[in-house]
């Protein structure tokens, strides 16, 4: 790529992707949804999810976290179906990467399993609560949680290799430690964790929120694994997906049994997100991650406000 095109492309491409992501939403705002042919919405959903998948990887956020507020806020589907599809999107993204991350040592089973068990139990409770609450209350709560995620994204610090002097007794008893090959340094790195009881409690809350709103929980899993337990950042990111593949599955079963999984919404979303995430992974070296992260934060803040306004009836 010519050097004079490189810098403008890096800046413009993310903006273009986000603008295109908003196009179906603009169409929804300007045209009554009933006047559009039925196939417009699954197609718009596929395109939107494809674009979300592209930006989610460089932004370091799960596609499910962007999916529910954007689709819930700007598409004509009831939030029950959006949350059901959101869980499947988060699950499919986690499954697509899971086996490779496990084999490479970036996802750790012994770290994931105890946390996933508690998150799975509480995510079912979250799903039950979510389908019992009225839609406008859920929209407002979704807006508040999305704005909280924005705040978390702005203030959370990350550490590549946090210092863990000594594992806590529970982590030692469960044998939660490991080694992974760090491609950046070209060396194997050993790791161990601490504060396991606190992390178990936090994963109960994370599972509840994930099931309640149908959003993936990468935004919360990674900070808890990395900053609370002290797992290396890459191990935290890989293990987060493994936990998500179990906690999203338990909540998804509840949505499926409730009839809240509509294939015409769920399937184009899953396919679009998986394809977009593959492109996003390849574009990691082209796109400037910090730039995309800032734009995603702005987009999430907008979607969060939109959810609150929709829930209060101020902007239908």
């Amino acid at each position: 790529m010519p050097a004079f095109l490189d810098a403008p492309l890096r800046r413009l491409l993310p903006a273009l992707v986000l603008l295109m992501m908003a196009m179906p939403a603009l169409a929804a705002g300007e045209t009554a949804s009933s006047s559009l042919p039925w196939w417009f919405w699954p197609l718009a959903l596929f395109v939107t999810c494809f674009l979300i998948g592209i930006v989610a990887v460089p932004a370091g956020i799960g596609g499910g976290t962007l999916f529910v507020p954007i689709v819930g806020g700007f598409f004509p589907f009831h939030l029950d179906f959006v949350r059901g599809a959101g869980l499947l999107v988060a699950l499919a993204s986690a499954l697509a990467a899971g086996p490779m991350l496990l084999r490479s040592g970036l996802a750790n089973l012994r770290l994931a399993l105890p946390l996933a068990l508690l998150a799975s139990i509480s995510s079912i409770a979250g799903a039950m609560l979510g389908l019992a609450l009225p839609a406008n209350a859920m929209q407002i709560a979704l807006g508040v949680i999305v704005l909280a995620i924005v705040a978390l994204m702005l203030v959370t610090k990350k550490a590549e290799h946090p210092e863990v002097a000594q594992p806590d007794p529970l982590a030692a008893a469960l044998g939660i430690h490991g080694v992974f090959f760090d491609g950046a340094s070209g060396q194997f790195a050993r790791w161990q964790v601490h504060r396991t009881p606190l992390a178990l409690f936090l994963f109960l809350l994370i599972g509840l929120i994930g099931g309640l709103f149908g959003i993936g929980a990468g935004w919360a899993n990674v900070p808890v694994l990395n900053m609370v337990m002290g797992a290396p950042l890459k191990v935290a990111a890989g293990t987060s997906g493994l936990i998500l593949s179990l906690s999203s599955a338990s909540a998804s079963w509840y949505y499926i049994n409730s009839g809240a999984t509509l294939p015409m919404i769920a399937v184009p979303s899953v396919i679009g997100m998986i394809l977009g995430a593959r492109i996003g992974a390849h574009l990691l070296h082209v796109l400037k991650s910090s730039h995309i992260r800032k734009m995603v934060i702005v987009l999430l803040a907008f979607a969060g406000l939109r959810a609150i306004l929709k829930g209060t009836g101020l902007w239908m």
Partner: protein
Amino acid sequence: MDVNTAASAADLERDEVRVYANLLYYGMVAGFVLLLASFAAYLFGWLPAFVAPQELPRLWGLPVAQYLQQSHSPSGWGWLAQAGHGDFSNLVGIVVLVGCSLPPLLALVPLFLKQRDRAYAIICALEVLVLLLAASGVLGAGH
């Protein structure tokens, strides 16, 4: 190969990781293939739809309870009886994807017991029970 490298290599090749990753991979691929095939059958009308796609814009803005009532769709595992319809055939692929963690978890139980690691064998068994409980529909799902 130094001690650290040897230990790392052994760690990465643990049986539990290999078994879990392989079974998860096969389940995930099977789920995606079924999902793509059934969605194509639904979209192109190769299988008749239970709820016609043209009807969906009138229904997908309703809460799930009203949607089920107005579309006469089944809840719980009732969809299985309608799996010959294009829309419900998609749930086969979805269910395989959602359930694809069960075989690897079940396979880990005897592996952990063989390693005399009872804590992890119990954790895996409990996770299987939680997933089966959620899948069974006895937790009150359905309207």
